[in-house]
């Protein structure tokens, strides 16, 4: 699938807290941003790993949750009308002959940008694979870590493994299309919306699906086609479950992913930068937040904010070598206040 390229000043890879704040700093310098994230929402680690946990070390916010911090950063970036592209993984990054950069995603989006900011944190969020021997051989054929189209599961004998919202939501949603539905989880408690748990129990009572306590220990089948699994119950005994499709839902983890293929210098999976511009080994490609490294680096949100401010100045100068930047405060500059929509 080829699409017309989206032309812009900046592509930011990663919509975590540092990518979001970079929109603000770049916006003050009139640079328009597109953000791409593999997650279905903004906030990076704050949104995916600890939305409800309190953060105590954001300057001037004595306590703020991961979710609230994300909301506030979105609000602060809003005057600059950034465009967000979720559920998209940036796969390719290359320099064009005219000095701009081409960025491509797995979903077929193409951008052409003057500068690229990598704010990819610990890497892209990807599904955690359960440690079941030989599972790789079934992946993509009868083992899936996400549901792209419900129709693909029509008349299948589906087994779902896990106890979170994804596991329960897909159990409930796929039950009517599947030939049979079974759920397996290691305990009788769930970390999911109580309403979904009740619905699942109701389906079991109506005889429309089965729930098993235990953990899958082995897969059976041929040439990538699953025919069943062996599970270990909590009493230590083994039992068999018949199924032709397995959907494991064990949450997400961060993997460096495609960044390793972009020809940038890396040090232990991090991008070394200088501390004046936060630029990578490739001029015009900047790196801020958890993904970068330099002497004294601390993986803190507040450090990422500082990096965003300095990076924005350098990125502006890179994109506009002849322009003069005057240093201004948001408190006193009418031109900055106009950009923010408050003057």
């Amino acid at each position, binding site marked *: 699938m080829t699409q017309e390229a989206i032309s812009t000043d900046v592509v930011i890879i990663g919509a975590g807290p540092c990518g979001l704040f970079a929109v603000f700093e770049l916006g003050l310098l009139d640079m328009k941003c597109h953000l791409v994230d593999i997650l279905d929402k903004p906030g990076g680690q704050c949104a995916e790993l600890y939305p409800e946990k309190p953060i105590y070390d954001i300057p001037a916010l004595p306590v703020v949750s991961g979710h609230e911090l994300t909301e506030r950063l979105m609000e602060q970036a809003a005057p600059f009308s950034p465009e967000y592209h979720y559920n998209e993984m940036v796969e390719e990054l290359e320099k064009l002959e005219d000095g701009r950069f081409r960025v491509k995603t797995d979903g077929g989006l193409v951008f052409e940008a003057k500068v690229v900011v990598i704010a990819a944190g610990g890497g892209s969020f990807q599904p955690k694979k*359960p*440690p079941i021997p030989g599972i790789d051989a079934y992946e993509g054929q009868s083992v899936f870590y996400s549901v792209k189209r419900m129709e693909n599961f029509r008349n299948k004998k589906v087994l779902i493994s*896990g106890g*979170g919202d994804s596991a329960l939501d897909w159990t409930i949603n796929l039950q009517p299309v599947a030939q049979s539905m079974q759920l397996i989880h*290691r*305990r009788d*408690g769930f*970390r999911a919306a109580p309403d979904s748990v009740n619905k699942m129990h109701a389906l079991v009572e109506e005889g429309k699906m089965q729930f098993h306590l235990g*953990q899958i220990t082995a897969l059976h089948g041929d040439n990538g086609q699953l025919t069943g699994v062996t599970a270990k119950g909590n009493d230590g005994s083994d039992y068999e479950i018949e199924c032709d499709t397995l959907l494991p839902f*064990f949450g997400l983890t961060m993997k460096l992913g495609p960044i390793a293929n972009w020809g940038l210098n890396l040090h232990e999976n991090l991008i070394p930068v200088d501390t004046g511009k936060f630029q990578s080994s490739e001029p015009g490609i900047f790196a801020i937040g958890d993904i970068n490294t330099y002497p004294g680096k601390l993986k803190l949100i507040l450090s990422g904010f500082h990096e965003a401010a300095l990076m924005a100045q350098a990125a502006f100068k890179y994109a506009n070598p002849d322009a003069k930047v005057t240093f201004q405060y948001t408190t006193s500059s009418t031109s900055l206040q106009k950009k923010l929509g408050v003057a």
Partner: protein
Amino acid sequence: MRIILVDGKGRERELEAIEGWRVMEIIRDHGFPIVAECGGACACGTCQVEVDPQWAAKLHEPRGDELDMLDQNYGGEWSRLSCQLIMTPELDGLRVRLADVAIRKAA
């Protein structure tokens, strides 16, 4: 005070422990390659250990967020998160085995 750590290859080590420290911190500060990605915030599950069944009853029951993380990381019957286990004199001699997810692999 000490804990006994069984590593990925089945080797046993005795580690000096300090009261009030998390078992994860004790393992990490002795230089073992434990992943413990979130630094003890009970948000990653990569500090998982299997507790010797004889010791399991001496530990406090896992809280909800620990159970959640064990769910996501394929925990078994004796699995705990070592960042949620705090050393007390009663736990002197505690035996734990590092789970596969907790062992840092060479990049």
